[in-house]
């Protein structure tokens, strides 16, 4: 996909305006998945703003965001970084053959207490 078109698409899908960001880093400071992320929430914002999107699309960080909305809630400029992470993740898994998880993966994930909610949530996040 053409880079500028991809950038435009991400901004349209997410409704995020990365230019509002003042890079205070509060989103990353409050992120419960911070330690497991290669790119942190504030980097998603700046990298999408700069059109540096390929590294984000290849990063495992996409699958570590919990969508807990901590960064959305605590951003002093209402940038809402989680929505941008979600948009990049969708841009990846919407591609043919790019599903992160398939139904065949499920039996191995089950234990006797696994709530249905865990599987449907993971499926929605990792699969199109």
């Amino acid at each position, binding site marked *: 996909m053409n880079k500028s078109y991809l950038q435009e698409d991400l901004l349209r*899908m997410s409704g995020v305006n990365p230019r509002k960001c003042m890079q205070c880093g509060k989103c990353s400071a409050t992120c419960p998945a911070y330690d497991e992320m290669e790119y942190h929430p504030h980097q998603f914002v700046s990298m999408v703003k700069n059109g540096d999107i390929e590294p984000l699309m290849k990063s495992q960080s996409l699958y570590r965001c*919990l*969508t807990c*909305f*901590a960064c959305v809630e605590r951003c002093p400029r209402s940038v809402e970084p989680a929505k941008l992470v979600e948009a990049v993740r969708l841009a990846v898994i919407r591609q043919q053959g790019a599903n992160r998880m398939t139904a065949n993966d499920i039996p191995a994930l089950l234990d006797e207490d696994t*709530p249905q*909610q865990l599987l*449907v949530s*993971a499926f*929605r996040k990792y699969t199109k």
Partner: protein
Amino acid sequence: MNVSYFPGCTLKNKARDLDRYARQCAQVLGITLEEVENWQCCGGVFTTAKDEVATKLSSVRLLQAAKAKEQPLVTVCSACHNVVKQTNHAMQIDGEFAAKVNRYMADDGEYDGSTQVYHYLELLRDVVGYDTLKDKVTNPLKGKKIAAYYGCLLLRPSSVMSMDDPENPTIMEDMIRALGATPVVYANRNECCGGYVSVESPALAKKNSLAVVEDAKAAGADMIITACPLCRYNLVKNGADIPVVYFTELLAEALGLKEDANE
């Protein structure tokens, strides 16, 4: 009072206690939960992308079903509540999204975002009232120190969920007080347990879940309550050494509806 009720997938399976006690307690409090017919799973997580339409249709149909009966819609599971409420909000504020959705709604009628959505806790606080609840308590939970675990989905994003102060909530603590117990306030009560990431990165879920449990214990709690089956699963699976129970179970105990209340 009759209200439309959406139990959701997990309350029909692994979280049956959350559902069963919710229904029994509502009856005692003068509210009948009428389960929406032919409901479908909400999907567990709200997809924030504006161009995701199909993934939100089950929530819209649910909201429309409640509207057709002129009833508010009540949820119990934190995740269901988050998905349904965020979808309702999108129907209210995003005309382009609403127009796309309504192209799928020929059989059910167009939906306009007008259904009132209550989480069961809001029903207790705003419709029943905690003073009335207190009067209905037959088995006050005196001496119990209980930590309310909100997690992420009940409160955030607060601009949409509008349940309580997202950083200093009181809705569950006030319920605990009404039931005669003592609420324990601790820093991690509104931080995420790790959610669905436990399928991919159990270590991350373990770290987050244990931080919640340890924090609650350090504040003196001897029990944790939650509204979310996934929170409960993550906390218990990762080694919580104090009981983690659904808030409806605690409610049932205080209202004298639980058979093993004196254990």
